[in-house]
């Protein structure tokens, strides 16, 4: 029987969420009435019956040793009736039944874990990110490291909840596949030329599959003089997306010499007000500079400064730029507007200014 078990899939499915809920969550499930901010990083949710559940949000590095996770559990056992949660931005949320526990808990989180408290309200919360050089096979840059470097410069924005006009969501991705989410600000790796085919690798992948994956049919098989079938990429069709690289490592799309970082702004997933929006290119050509990527943090701060200075309250970054115009965005930040900012996709025409409206 043990053997049988070992061979087949168990298909256990998802853990029972009910067993994991904080007792006050279970009791007041679907019965919450309102919430209030207590201070940055600290919320209280009040149930219809008056019950109060306190939440302390702590910034987390996402990648943790089990020792660190156990320390988190220790704190939750002490103050949170043995329950906690993580947010969709990888922060830790400590759930408390008693208001008086907030202070001691925060003290312990800071001292034991070194995690800052914040990320609520109109703050810069944790940065959504990907694997980078720590684990993926495709990255052109690091993720955890570059995010650590950038967050080090954004503590004020994380730890306050009304320093900014609205929530600012940042994400980072380490190749053009973009496992990172959309964001008010997104930092993405940018490839600059078609893949270079590593001759030693040709043959290790299924050639037809590699040919088939290319979205623009830029890859085609090619007979070499020696009779061996290899691949070639039609440069003018290739858009450097890297899909082939995911399929076959031989299609090397990365290039330590030319890969750069780009910053995209104005992404939004919420259907609030103007609705969701895609992010758009703000800056390209930033050097990929480990270990602190200062050019990136400088650019991010320029954007945040302009936003803080001129956005209305409750105006997300994309809504702000839409209002003030991209022309003003480039003026305010000093970034150049180049031909590469102009869309050239099949839908490019919908992005052109097809009106005589003009600002000076």
């Amino acid at each position, binding site marked *: 029987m043990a053997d049988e078990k070992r061979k087949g899939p168990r298909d256990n499915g998802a853990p029972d969420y009910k067993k994991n809920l904080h007792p006050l969550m279970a009791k007041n499930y679907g019965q919450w009435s309102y919430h209030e901010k207590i201070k940055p990083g600290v919320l209280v949710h009040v149930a219809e019956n008056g019950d109060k559940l306190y939440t302390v949000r702590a910034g987390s590095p996402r990648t943790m040793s089990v020792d660190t996770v156990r320390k988190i559990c220790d704190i939750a056992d002490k103050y949170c009736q043995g329950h906690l949660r993580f947010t969709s931005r990888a922060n830790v949320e400590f759930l408390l039944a008693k208001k008086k526990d907030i202070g001691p808990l925060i003290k312990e989180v800071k001292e034991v874990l070194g995690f800052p408290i914040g990320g609520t309200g109109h703050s810069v919360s944790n940065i959504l990110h990907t694997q980078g050089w720590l684990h993926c096979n495709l990255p052109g840059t690091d993720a955890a490291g570059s995010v650590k470097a950038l967050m080090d410069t954004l503590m004020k924005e994380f730890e306050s909840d009304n320093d900014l006009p609205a929530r600012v969501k940042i994400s980072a991705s380490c190749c053009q596949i973009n496992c990172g989410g959309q964001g008010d600000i997104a930092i993405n790796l940018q490839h600059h030329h078609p893949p*270079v085919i590593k001759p030693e690798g*040709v043959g290790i992948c299924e050639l037809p599959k590699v040919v088939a994956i290319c979205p623009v049919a830029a890859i085609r098989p090619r007979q070499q003089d020696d009779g061996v079938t290899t691949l070639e990429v039609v*440069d003018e069709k290739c858009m450097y*997306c890297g899909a082939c690289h995911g399929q076959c490592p031989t299609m090397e799309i990365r290039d330590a010499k030319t890969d750069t970082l*780009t910053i995209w702004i104005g992404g939004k997933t919420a259907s609030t007000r103007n609705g969701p929006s895609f992010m758009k*290119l703000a800056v390209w050509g930033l050097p990929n500079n480990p270990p602190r990527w200062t050019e990136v943090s400088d650019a991010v701060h320029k954007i945040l400064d302009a936003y803080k200075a001129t956005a209305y309250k409750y105006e997300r970054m994309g809504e702000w730029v839409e209002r003030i115009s*991209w022309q003003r965005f480039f003026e305010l930040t000093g970034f150049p507007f180049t031909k590469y900012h102009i869309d050239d996709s099949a839908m490019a025409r919908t*992005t052109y200014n097809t*009106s005589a409206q*003009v600002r000076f």
Partner: protein
Amino acid sequence: MSEKKKKIETPMVDELLDGPWPSFAKDLKEWSSKKPQVGQLLGQLNQSYEDKWNYWQGTVLNVDGYGGGVIARYSELAEEYPDIAQFHTIRVIPPAGWVYSTESLRNLCDIWEKHGAGIMQLHGMTGDILLLGSDNKTTFEAAEELFENGWDLGGSGGALRTLACCVGEARCEMACYDTMKTTTDLTNRYISQLHRPEFPYKYKFKLSGCANDCGCSMQRSDMPIIGTWKDDIRVDQKEVAAFVTEHGADFVRDNVINRCPTRCITLNKKKIEIDNKECVRCMHCINVMHKALRPGVEKGVTILLGGKRTLKIGDTMGVQLVPFMPLKTEEDYDKLYDLVERIWEFWGENAMDHERVGEFIARVGLGTFLDGVGIDPDARMVKAPRTTPYIKFEEITPGRMGGEAEDDPAVSNAEVEQMEKA
């Protein structure tokens, strides 16, 4: 199909004789007493109404030295209606802004009664005077007499087309530049391109004195030229106060303040303040309060490119190419000509056959087009920058101009790499 008859019956067309709107059918029916071909025209039209079918075929006819200007037709029902066997239209360039002295209009009427069927359309959608109903002989005679009287043929085919403009400074206080002069100057400077098709496809200019675009340039011309201003809206606060008094502050708030696309107007009691840095010169507030507000005094034009209607890639609109250009001095005009010629050169050399400039831009991309014409990118050219991260850096992969894939395009391949290593 109906049989040949002596008297032409047009029962279906006759249903359009009455009714309050002026009836072309009634006019032509009356006129057919003088010109039998007009009666036959109505006969054929009636046949079309009955069959829901058209009986004209197109053909080509050119006046000597001209490559266009005549739209030649022959009737498929010529047996029945012999006098419209050939029934061509001559396109004639009108005075800019369609302002006429009765003398010149009568001159046209006389020529056309003499040589043609005496039917005029004032005006065609492009802006030409359309003279309907000449045959293979009278077309030439009419053209000759038109030329002698100072008239000229309009455009057709892959050529510059007859220009059109709004009435502008001749009768409109909104006008920010001289649309009539510019129309006339462009026509005369490029009259050869208008008469002898040498472009990949047609090229239309339409000119409007302000963003109201009464000249319909945005979606119906390749190169809209639209008046604008650079400095501040002129405000006459006395008139503002009078307006507020007359209509009420609520009216002003609902219809002016809240309709400003950038919300850059504020009303303080009976005084208006405009944050001109945020004004996009949309004309709305000026339209509503035109006695109180006026465009600034540093006037000029915004030049767009690539408008057209549907065929092939669907409707397109002009894209903002030059946010502001003054158009007063000869030097200003030279800059406009220079721009036009650079566009024609680049488009002419690189476009495919039957490819309008807007289609060309849609194909090669605005960025590549700007490079080709030598204009610096400006954030005002776009609503927003790109969303897709697939940026082709042309330093590395030059953009493709030609329509067809090259036989031997640049490729990255394993062999080359191997050779490099060897």
